[in-house]
């Protein structure tokens, strides 16, 4: 079966540069509903930029970004959110002066879905006890979870998760792994950016390796770790 036919998200020939710095260079891959794809690469290799291009914070300079068969490269962020693309942030971006609950409520009315269960999301993320606290008073890790909760409240079909595992202890990592797998089981497509390879290995069947903006590898993480180009990118040649 071809993954192209059933792809929810498809990138091809995507290029993004800032001034003279080419950050994404001919990036192309696709993601199917219910699939978890890992996105790895050394610092500065363009992982977050890829997420920004998919979620609409930036527009690709060239190439195709399509979602559910529609070219979305010119759509503003809020339209992409309404279509079902959402994300968390590597550096959390919560509404600091609003309560945890309000942070999720704001997003719960996105698009046509008006029956999002805010309490269920708070429970899933273990934030229920903090619901009435101002979001700015949470720890960085809790704020990242809250960003994820806000994304979930929009009822996403594709979720982009940027380094949510950094700084978590093993028990918390287990919780996140279970949560992400649960989301995939509901049919949500996920792209997970993570430096913790053990964690990724547990939840993904397929990873994409970026190095200096180029796609170096696509396949299982095991195979990636034996790929000479990937090894060189990570450890220097």
């Amino acid at each position, binding site marked *: 079966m071809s993954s192209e036919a059933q792809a929810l998200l498809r990138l091809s020939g995507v290029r993004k540069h800032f001034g003279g710095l080419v950050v994404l260079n001919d990036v192309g891959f696709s993601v199917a509903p219910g699939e978890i794809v890992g996105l790895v690469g050394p610092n500065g290799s363009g992982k977050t930029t890829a997420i920004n291009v998919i979620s609409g914070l930036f527009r690709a300079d060239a190439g195709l970004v399509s979602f559910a068969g529609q070219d979305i490269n010119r759509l503003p962020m*809020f339209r992409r959110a309404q279509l079902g693309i*959402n994300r968390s*942030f590597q550096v959390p971006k919560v*509404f600091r002066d*609003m309560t945890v609950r309000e942070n999720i409520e*704001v997003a719960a*009315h*996105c698009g046509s879905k008006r029956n999002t269960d805010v309490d269920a999301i708070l429970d899933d993320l273990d934030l229920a006890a903090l619901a009435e606290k101002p979001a700015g008073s949470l720890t960085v890790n809790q704020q990242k979870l809250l960003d994820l909760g*806000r994304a979930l409240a929009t009822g996403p079909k594709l979720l982009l998760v940027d380094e949510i595992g950094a700084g978590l202890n093993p028990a918390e990592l287990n919780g996140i792994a279970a949560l992400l797998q649960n989301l995939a089981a509901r049919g949500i497509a996920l792209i997970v950016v993570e430096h913790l390879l053990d964690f990724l290995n547990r939840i993904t069947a397929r990873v994409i390796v970026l190095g200096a903006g180029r796609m170096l590898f696509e396949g299982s993480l095991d195979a990636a770790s034996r790929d000479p180009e990937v090894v060189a990118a990570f450890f220097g040649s």
Partner: protein
Amino acid sequence: MPDDSLLHKLRPGALVLALLAAGFLLLPHMYGNQSLLFTLMTFIVLTQGLNLLYGFTGYLPFGYVGFFGCGAYATSLLVLHAHLPVLACVAGGGLAAVLMALVLGPLLRLSGAYFSIASLAASQILYFVVSNTNLADITGGPYGLKIERVFAPDASYLAMLAVLLLTSGLAAYFRSSRFGMELRAMKQDPTSAAMAGIDVVRERLIVWLVSALVAGLAGGVYAWNLSVFYPDAVFTLQISVFAIVFALFGGVGTVIGPIVGAAVLYTLYSAIGISSPQYFQLIYGALIVLLVLFLPGGILSLFTRRGIRVF
């Protein structure tokens, strides 16, 4: 249950409107100087209108007075040339300010001080155009306009009260509605707000137009009340400065902060500022310094700091 919570949401706003209406209907009978009360209402409207934009979106328009002047001139020109009922002319003044805000909409792409200064420049340009001698045939140039034909202090007093209630009602709506919650979210993080599905650009533009509308209406009623005015009277930068200081003094982002701020400081100004402006400027300057140092959230933050929720 939903009705109950709706009532609960509407109550503080309704209370503020009722108090304002009762106050400004009764005060002329207890305190004779109706024209001072009229000017006070004008400043509360402008302070609240500025708060709608600054308090809820974080965009501080130094040139806010431009909309006021625009409304004053458009209303007067309609009175002179259109032969419409005066209230329709005032509505036209509000509309003219909205149109001007629409033209200036791209300014919202700027942020922070750049936006503030660009809006200031826009209001100054409008002022120079309107007061230009070459346009004296249309705008009266430096000599201003006269519409004494429609002079009606009592009716215009009531009209300003209506604009005041409208403006405060809008602030109450911003404070307690879902739209207001979205504004708060955008103000704190526009990127996250967009990812929450909010059309940030559109909502910001709506608030900009609404705040221009109330300033334009206020300008129209003000011109009607004065009935003879020079361009300086409706375009002076002092009007913007007052609105900004009053709003900051009371506390932006709330409904009653700007009302309290304008009422306290304008009363102070009319008590000592008009007779001995040098003392007033001293007090004013000291107040601003003290505010910035100790109460950046305005006097209402004395309550919010103690956990008392201010509407």
